[in-house]
């Protein structure tokens, strides 16, 4: 390398006295960045903030013109209404929340239990036409739910799965398994097959080797995948509104949507229900945030 002594020496002073223009440019950019981010944050977060505010306002403050941002009386009545019926006992909304928990939870567990071993098999074994099979599995997710909901509706009516939690659980599982297989295959590929080889030489069967060595290493990936599946099932609206009708079966998204549309809309109740509905997913995502990022970036850093 042809670095002259003069050049080499002059780097010191240059570093100490950064040219003013450069410095200004740097700061200018960061100011712009912060400003843009702030605008974006306000735009994105305003509906959320407004939802939270509305959920703790009294109804007449909700309709106040000009809108009241800060000087309103805080009330928890709406949250009480979410869980308890006016005459005492459980409210229809609270039942729908419980349904959501059951449907999303069970379908996520099923998708994971089915998808993880499948991903392992696709990763480890020589399967005929493996790429085609994997593509076919993925292709089932290309269709948006609205496209298949009518045929599913007709099929469900035939077999008596209309307006049942089991029906929702099955369709959510079916939608989540392909996703689980694909995402988990990435994680399994990352775990060297030698762990299982070594375990098999140590006296374990192939399944034991998977269960005792690969599975523990996959737990972070499973957590991330399960959260994605859970979010899908939890938020799902189209199937839920088409395939269920009674209050005892309905999940939260159609139940909350059902609050809107009467002659008067109790916006406070809608907002409070939405807050309660959003919380579990936020908490879950927060708990596994590290693995979520790993899961999302997995494809980007593969060899």
């Amino acid at each position: 390398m042809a670095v002259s002594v003069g050049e080499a020496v002059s780097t010191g002073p240059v570093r100490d006295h950064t040219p003013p223009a450069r410095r200004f440019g740097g700061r200018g950019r960061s100011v712009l960045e912060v400003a843009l981010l702030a605008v974006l944050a306000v735009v994105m977060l305003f509906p959320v903030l407004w939802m939270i505010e509305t959920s703790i306002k009294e109804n007449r403050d909700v309709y106040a013109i000009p809108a009241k941002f800060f000087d309103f009386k805080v009330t928890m009545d709406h949250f009480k209404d979410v869980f308890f019926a006016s005459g005492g006992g459980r409210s229809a909304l609270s039942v729908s929340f419980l349904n959501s928990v059951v449907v999303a939870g069970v379908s996520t567990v099923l998708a994971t239990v089915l998808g993880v071993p499948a991903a392992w098999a696709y990763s480890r074994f020589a399967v005929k036409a493996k790429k085609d099979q994997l593509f076919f599995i993925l292709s089932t997710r290309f269709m948006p739910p609205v496209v298949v909901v009518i045929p599913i509706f007709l099929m469900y009516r035939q077999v008596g799965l209309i307006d049942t939690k089991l029906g929702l659980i099955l369709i959510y599982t079916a939608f989540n398994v392909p996703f689980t297989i694909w995402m988990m295959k990435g994680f399994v590929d990352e775990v060297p097959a030698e762990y299982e080889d070594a375990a098999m030489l140590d006296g374990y069967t192939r399944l034991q080797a998977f269960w005792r060595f690969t599975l523990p290493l996959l737990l972070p990936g499973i957590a991330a995948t399960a959260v994605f599946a859970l979010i899908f099932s939890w938020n799902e609206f189209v199937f839920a509104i088409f395939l269920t009708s009674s209050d005892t079966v309905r999940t939260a998204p159609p139940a909350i949507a059902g609050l809107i549309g009467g002659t008067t809309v109790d916006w406070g109740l809608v907002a409070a229900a939405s807050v309660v509905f959003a919380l579990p997913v936020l908490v879950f995502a927060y708990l596994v945030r590290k693995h979520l990022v790993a899961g999302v970036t997995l494809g980007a850093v593969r060899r």
Partner: protein
Amino acid sequence: MAGIEVTALHKRYPDGTVAVDHVDLAIGDGELFVMLGPSGCGKTTTLRAIAGLERQTTGDIRIGDTLVNDLPPAERDIAMVFQFYALYPHLRTRDNLAFPLRAEGLPKPEVRERVDEAARLMRLGPLLDRRPHRLSGGEQQRVALARALVRRPRAFLMDEPLTNLDAELRADMRTEIKHLQGELGTTMVYVTHDQVEAMSLGHRIAILNKGRVEQIGTPLEVYDRPASLFCAAFIGSPPMNLIEVEVADGELRGKSGLVLTPPPNLPRDRSLVAGVRPEALEVTEPGAERSVPARVVSAEWLGDEIIYVVDHGDQRDVRVRMPPTVRFAADAPVGLRHTGGPPPVYDVSTEELVA
């Protein structure tokens, strides 16, 4: 302990790749047997078939007197060390070592005793309470070896276990493995693409090429009389000079007139190539006795020796190994002569050793 016999092994992967074409091996009880060959020649596949991790398409594998074709890895009673160490990342060294023993259901005191013994053999004392990610590459490999030892298996299988270590550590570990194998007397099949490793470790070496065995022999045999042109070009650094020769008047002559010591029973009427080691040639002053005129193309000073590339009027230049005290300038006119005994001679069309 047991010998290993591989008969007519053939392995075709589902995608159609023939990884092992035809391999016969008879590995003696207590032998340190090395499989040597370039990358992709089927070494790993053969080893994994012996271990039971891969099912051969056809052929038989015997460990001791048992035909193990249909036995799962767990029932073959062998230990394998991988290029990638495969230490369980969530276990400390101590538990990594104990693992195979617990799998066998040995009583606790015996597990502890065996772990301590293996740790002593591989000098792992201070590392016993660390997890793999806090061990250096060399330490991880020592733990992997110790883990193979604790079970006292009937045979060790090693798949390029030293490839990921740096050169100095590799030399140390090589010595250690050889010593250990001698001490324990356990049969070991050692796979490598590094001929130095193969030469220094093996009681016998099998040279593999494209899924076939080219030669099996002691390091000396393999070095002195490579069984085929492939082996001749593979073993040695630099490898043999392959010089086209013809037989005339009871003499073996290169195209340049270079005279080689003729081996007995040379076949006639065939195109022949002689394999001449760089140390069996000598660069001399021009016009020296029995020398042919030649020219130094380049010289490589390696400290303890000099490798001269010499043009002697043949199509191919030859490499000559000389002591560092003898110096010739590049482009200098010199003489070239053969000093060794009869070289191995190969048939050009069959590529096999004929004399």
